């Protein structure tokens, strides 16, 4: 069952359709409803290695549907602490619950100030409007 469109207030957004939920010096990352809708049902998630260093605005992995591949663009820099095995095993979890069970990785931020460069819900809504 695909989720209906939403963009929670408590998240920060990146214009490449990724989100971050910050908790102390850690953050959980995922893709937005818009991203999963554009891709269609996901069939594969290629996560980064545990412990890998990832950089803001750079690709840390890939998600695939039948007809498309999308780089996962990190909104923040940091070290990968955890990978969501549930999405590895059942990639459609992202379609069903992009902000909850469909999270992708948890990181320890290396430059917490980067959050200042991310968008709030209203800012991301303007990005979506521009793309439409």
């Amino acid at each position, binding site marked *: 069952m695909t989720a209906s469109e939403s963009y929670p207030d408590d998240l920060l957004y990146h214009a490449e359709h990724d989100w971050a939920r910050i908790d102390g010096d850690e953050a959980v990352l995922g893709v937005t409803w818009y991203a999963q809708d554009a891709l269609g049902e996901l069939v594969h998630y290629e996560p980064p290695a545990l412990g890998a260093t990832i950089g803001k605005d750079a690709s840390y992995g890939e998600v695939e549907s039948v*007809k*498309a*591949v999308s780089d996962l663009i990190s909104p923040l820099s940091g070290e990968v602490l955890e990978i969501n095995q549930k999405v590895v095993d059942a990639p459609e979890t992202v379609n069903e619950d992009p902000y909850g069970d469909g999270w992708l990785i948890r990181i320890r931020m290396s430059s917490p100030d980067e959050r200042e460069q991310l968008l709030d819900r209203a800012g991301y809504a303007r990005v979506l409007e521009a793309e439409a």
Partner: protein
Amino acid sequence: MSYLSLTDADREAMLATIGISSVEELFRDIPPGVRYARELDVAPALTEVELQRHLEELASKNTVDEVCFLGAGIYDHYVPAVVDAVLQRGEFLTAYTPYQPEMSQGVLQAIFEYQTAICELTGMDVSNASGYDGTTVAADACFVAKHATGRSKVVVTEATNPQVRQVVKTYAPGFGLEVVEVPHEGGTTDPDRVRDAAEGAAAVIFQQPNFFGILEHAPELAAAANDAEAMPIAHVDLVSLGVLEAPGNYGCAMAIGEGQSAGNAMSYGGPHYGFLAARSDYIRRLPGRIVGETVDAAGDRGYVLTLQTREQHIRREKATSNITTNQTLLALAGLVHLSLLGPQGLRELGETCMALAGYAQGRLAAAGLEPVFPEKATFKEFAVHTGRNAREALGAARAQGIYAGYPLGRDYPGLDDALLVAVTEKRTVEEIDRLVEALS
């Protein structure tokens, strides 16, 4: 022109619908500076009768009536009549890649069956729907290995087909790969030297039976590669796999090869098919088409192209390969041939080749033509000393209607008197006796 249907009236009506007055006007977007103003300077058109005559004349200038003991990668095996009949079915012959599965269940199921046959023969989990030939699949395998291991060196044994090595070397710089060759010693490859060379390598490619027709200690070569965490890749002959062990059963990561032996005419070098199979770990890194099973909206079984996100039309510069058009029809020929043979026929085919080759080797030795690599087990091909320049020996035999083999000196300095002799199930004892006489 008999391949065109439009009448003058058709053309007039179509131009009117388009809203222009001449065919010339269709090309108005082409800048005058790059328009070709002349008639093409090519020979006049031929009718079908004339065309048949012209091509028959060209074909007659080739010599195909000498008894063929030439192999070196392409073999004079028998192609059953059913193969030709199936390939001439227009629904297979004149279709393209099954992008629309509902229109293409026939070829999709056939490819699925082909993938199964290749996996069964090689002991692997997944096969693609074909590469261009036995050389390019080796380059493909290097690309897979580089990305799977993150290493930038590949090892190829010198006893691997020289054309395979040349193609790997041609592709390697673009891949950022260094190619290291391990020399043979007396016709086979020393596993210890492979182990040393494989240090830090992405893959080790070896051929079984090797280019000299000799059986390598394949399990030990695979183990040597695995010791260095390099992917062992066996280049094998499908026709041998009824009697020789499957590479998947002795530790190989991938199995590749030239498919011509199963189902294809020699045809002066093509078109043939290259097969490429791997353990399931590598499925997302494989090049080319892969067919998968699924169900339709009614729940009935059907087949589709799958894991297409690997491919160039989706992943573009990050694709696992640029391959698009492949060799499906030739692979289908392979499937038909293998289906006719069955396990027993494939085994007998291998045994007959071995029996005839063994007979030839013995008779030649008795006539004074010693094996180049004595005491080595061989399959359907072997090297003999001719006692003179091998090209001279070849010429002398050809004068007696025998094409005696391949002069190894072309690729291996120091083996100038050696001839590589291939014996398929099409050869007879009488023909082998003539070979012996012609070379003596």
